[in-house]
């Protein structure tokens, strides 16, 4: 019973955490990575994956926290990296949890 409670608490904690990540996504990622035209990140990922993966980040189910953090802090191609005054480590944890949440 106790183990179950711990598991429940952890799951609930992760869900809350992922929910904190949504506004971070909306503010910092969506302008380039939301679905539809006018989003260069989405166009770029469509050209890269050619249908093998969904081009919009929110539709991806294969992202993991380390992958999200790598791109945010190291950038790729014309996407620059983001400073900690823009996306703090705590916000990045939440963003990584949001984009890699189980669905």
């Amino acid at each position, binding site marked *: 019973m106790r183990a179950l409670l711990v598991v429940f608490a952890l799951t609930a904690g992760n869900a809350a955490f992922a929910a904190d990540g949504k506004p971070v996504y909306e*503010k910092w990622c969506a*302008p*380039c990575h939301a679905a*539809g*035209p*006018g*989003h*260069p*990140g989405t*166009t*770029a*990922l469509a*050209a*890269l994956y050619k249908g093998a993966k969904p081009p919009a980040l929110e539709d991806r189910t294969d992202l993991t926290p380390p992958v999200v953090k790598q791109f945010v*802090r190291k*950038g790729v*191609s*014309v*996407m*620059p*990296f*983001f*400073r*900690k*005054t*823009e996306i703090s480590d705590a916000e990045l944890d939440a963003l990584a949890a949001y984009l890699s949440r189980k669905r």
Partner: protein
Amino acid sequence: MRTPPGVSESDFGAALREFEAALGKEWVFTSDEDVDLYRDAYSPFWGEPDERVPSAALAPNSVEQVQAVVRIANRRKIPLYPISTGRNLGYGGSAPNASGTVVLDLKRMNRVLEVSERNAYALVEPGVSYFDLHRHIQEKGLKVWIDTPDPGWGSPMGNALDRGGGYTTHQFRNHFDAHCGIEVVLPDGEILRTGMGALPGSKTWQQYKTGFGPWIDGLFSQSNFGVVTKMGFWLMPEPEAYLTGTVFVSKHNDLIPLIDTLNYLESSRVCQGMSDLFSPAMGLPAAYDAPPFARDFAAMIADAVAGNPKAMEDHAARSGKGYWGCTIKFYGPAKVLQAQWEYAKEQFGRIPGARFVDGELIRLPLTAEQKKTAHLVEFGVPNLSIFAMGARNENTPNPGNGHQWFSPIIPRSGEAVFEANKVFMQAGKEFGLPVPPFSIPFCFWERSFVFLFGFPVTHDAEQNKKTRAAFAQLVKIAAEHGWGEYRTAPAYQDLIMSTYSYNNNALLRFHERLKDAVDPNGILSPGRYGIWPKHLRGRRA
């Protein structure tokens, strides 16, 4: 540990401890991992020993903290490089001119201090982005527009201080011109307010620009005389309607009367928006994801530029699309816009064979549906769609790592457009730069054109070295023709400043006299826009 030029590790360590005491340890970044986030992501020196990298970064959250940091830096002779949102990509990003300079990151100062709908102005801090200001106005339901450049994550203050531009009407799209009142922390930590802000308790800081006595605001743009901590901007009252109208002409040399007429209409304020010149026959400007021109077609364009336009004129006639086109834009009351467009048609109609296409009159504000297809920046709506440029797409399977802008100012005449294209295309060929067969100038600024060439930045040092050498040649060739750049990345600031050399560099020497007087210890942004403090003046390229 990286250190500022001429500062020992122990002295730098002592300064960092003082900065920590002023800001809290959390906001003093010294680890390589954190400081690397301040590299210029589009640096033309990426990964080379000459890449300009900071030694540390500081992130104050208030004017008082800025003052405290500047006082410590001035006492300990630690150079600081203020950034606002740090997104000046293509023109330098968040990295300083001199390696070892400490970045003063003002992103946390992100408060919209005031937006007045009645008097149509805003007062903002450095870290406020165009997205932030737009959101604030939307949430409060205020009927005022901002003017935003293409990348909406930039700072109204930072962009204005770098003298950037946007897309709405003349009065607002020159961002420095649209400002009204500055607060600045001087290198000794003292606060100065310009314009009416110099009057204690002033009621008109954002309503009258020049105050009393010399108007010094320009000194704080593209310079290093102070840390700007507040800036006012005039906003555009939300117009009732928006209208476009397009004129097409059929001959190569029709560009000359087309531009002369456009100039008259813009300078008379008959049309107020940012006009678009284009060539349907040439397919220019090309979309970012367009395939490159076939060789034969590029050769036909080159022939036209060389003064043999017959084949291109025939192609234009066959296609039925017109040789040149120009879309002009109107903002204001619907019935006034219609009359302005009718008048513009009369003026353009003097060019034989001119034909017109009426744009749709749009009642504002835009609906959600209209926003999906509109060129949003023309409606003051920030976004990031510009980053399609250079990003991966079907026709660009291997994108680079950014771009660097070569941005010469050219006279507003057809003759100058032809001459500049001849000169830049020849230079591009000679020095191996991807200069398109014809470049269409942009109408951002009143009374002049600007050409924008975005040359690629890669992570291949050899390739970057070649691009830099070619870029430098273009700067020299442009200057020989009487054309100068309006803005550039730190990599080229000394070079370009050296082309503004009238009367034995009188302008730069004046900047240096000011620098020595205002910032005798040379702590603010050494080298920015070619202005080095006395003790580092030998570093100039």
